[in-house]
């Protein structure tokens, strides 16, 4: 195992970009290599040592054997774990835009909040955000109709608007509340939201499933009531209790499943 610890010593309001610092790239790097490395900041590159104390312990033969810890706030560090394929990254603080975007494997844990585009176009691996995420978590790239396709994104806090646009696989679990239009344009995959949802989950969804355990404010006309179901099984997961089951969005001939906890959503009946 190789453990790399980056301890912040200086804050830059112009974001650092960490797309090159993923286990796949750095598993062979020594402490000297890190000290030589210049990190992209705006239109320039500056020594990583300007911003971090760097600690490297142990050896790694492959990216799987890497654990990188950013031991402090990374609220201005973009692209953490972006495109990573293996290994582990832990952020002991907030993470900036695109945390875990296009990730294919390995794990990323953020012990804080994540900015927008967290888990964008995720293909595999696991992302855990202990705090909240801003907009567009687990979303696709603009214009791209094939969004997140695999892996698991777990958000312990709340999720902002337009979660999982064009999701086409994988799993998202929001333990807190969720803002409008979760799962918009979704074609496949599974979203579970334990808290309350403002409005319009599943807009223009074609397929896949969304389960809401909290209260949903407004539902779209494009969702047809199917039945009240008890202890449903959705995409291989067992839920207990009564759920209101809808199919939609019929505006796009969608066959997506939307389940609302019946207890909390009597107002829709």
């Amino acid at each position: 195992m190789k453990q790399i610890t980056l301890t912040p010593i200086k804050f830059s309001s112009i974001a650092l970009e960490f797309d090159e610092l993923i286990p796949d790239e750095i598993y062979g790097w020594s402490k000297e290599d890190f000290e030589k490395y210049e990190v992209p900041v705006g239109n320039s590159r500056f020594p990583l040592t300007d911003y971090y104390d760097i600690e490297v312990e142990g050896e790694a033969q492959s990216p799987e054997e890497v654990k990188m810890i950013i031991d402090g706030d990374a609220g201005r560090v973009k692209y953490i774990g972006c495109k990573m394929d293996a290994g582990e990254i832990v952020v002991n603080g907030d993470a900036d835009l695109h945390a875990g975007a296009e990730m294919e494997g390995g794990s990323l844990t953020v012990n804080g909040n994540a900015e927008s585009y967290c888990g964008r176009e995720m293909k595999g691996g696991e992302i855990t955000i202990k705090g909240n995420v801003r907009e567009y978590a687990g979303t696709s790239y603009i214009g791209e109709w094939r969004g997140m396709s695999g892996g698991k994104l777990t958000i312990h806090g709340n999720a902002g608007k337009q979660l999982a646009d064009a999701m086409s696989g994988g799993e998202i679990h929001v333990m807190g509340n969720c803002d409008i239009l979760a799962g918009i344009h979704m074609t496949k995959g599974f979203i579970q939201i334990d808290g309350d949802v403002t409005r319009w989950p599943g807009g223009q969804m074609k397929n896949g499933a969304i389960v809401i355990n909290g209260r949903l404010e407004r539902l779209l006309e494009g969702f047809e009531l199917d039945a009240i179901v008890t202890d449903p099984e959705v995409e291989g997961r067992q839920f207990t209790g009564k759920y209101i089951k809808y199919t939609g969005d019929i505006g796009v001939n969608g066959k997506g499943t939307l389940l609302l906890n019946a207890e909390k959503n009597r107002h829709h009946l």
Partner: protein
Amino acid sequence: MAYEPPVTDYDKIVENCTCAFCGSNCDDVDILVKDNHVVGVRHACRLGASKIMEDEDQRLTVPMIRDENGELVEVDWDTALDKAAELIAGAVRPVFYGWSETSIEAMKPGLELTELVGAVIDNQATICHGPTVQAVQNVGYPLMTLGEVKNRADMVVYTGSNPMNAHPRHLARYTTFPKGFFRKRGRFDRTLVTWDPKYSDTAKLSDIWVPFEENGDYAFCNAIRAVLKGKELKQDVISGIPKEDIVALTEKMKNTQFGALFFGLGLTHTLSKQRNIDIAIQLVQDLNKYTKWVLLPMRGHFNVNGFNIFMSYEMGFPYGVDFSRGYPRYMIGETTTIDLLNRKECDVFMVIAADPGAHFPGGALAHLADIPVIQIDIHWGPSTELADVVLPGTFIGVETAGTSYRMDSVPIFMKKAIDPPETCREDEWIVNELLKRVTKLKEASK
């Protein structure tokens, strides 16, 4: 309006000039000139005419630099350009914003400068029709040139915009009133519809007004689409509109011969932002199963669309393009001006032919006050108060010729009617000078 006697005292008329105000780019404007001054304007609407006639008091006439006391003081062009070039060459996260009221010809060196220093280049779409562009990218873009509407349309729908105020000749010149080839009786051959929570001036002229509630746009369009799919609506009232009205309207839209939907910022700036456009576009796509429908965003400035087109063909992305890593990146929320300012990332800001001082949110303005700002413009404005270097440009379409793209993407060559003031310089020249000077500085520091 009070009666104004026609202008008779002029040396010449320059015909078929293009109004450099709203995205209608009316190219039938006659400018009356006496002693190299505009003394009259024919055919333009009030907004356009007053822009062209604009009172010269507010004109920026000389280059200026803010001195140690915080006062803008007049300097010569060399000094001002060198100062601006030095700021740009030394920046780590420069943003070049604006461009919607200048010509394509000025954008060219602007983009070259952007590529050279690894800046972000962005235009007003970032604060206005950005969500429209995103929606277009998500679901498509079934549009047409305005003459298609003039010649064929028997139903015209406006939503989220009030053209009678913001694009005054839009109805008269293109969509509703003109006699078209297949609509020989003009207005009488068309049904005009407005979807708007407010009883706007356009709504007042309309045959049908649909006052859906604020933020009700997404659910309203969703309901029409459901009706089109043959679905019975469950709720009696959707977004404040009785379901019978929605059904009746849907029928009308289905049974028209050629329908055109125009949408404005109103639709992009409610709760579900680009998703309103997204679903409106899909509604128009659905309607094409039954009959002909097209749509068009009501772009504000005369070249806001031009910038998006220019950037798309030059660099593949329409606005908010970041060259900091040597290749173009386009990511809403990351490479867009307001976000870069709100996050206090930008360290040098150049604004050309735009007024962030009047339109940006507070947080962004607060940051602008903290960093060097270079302004290229023709008028004093709130942005001048923020500027550290002021470079006075010329008036495209009146003093300088150039290319613009109308809201429907028709390119128009805007000619000039008079010569610019001697102390001002064309935007294209100014940006080219900056490019030359920054290139020199960069080479020297290699």
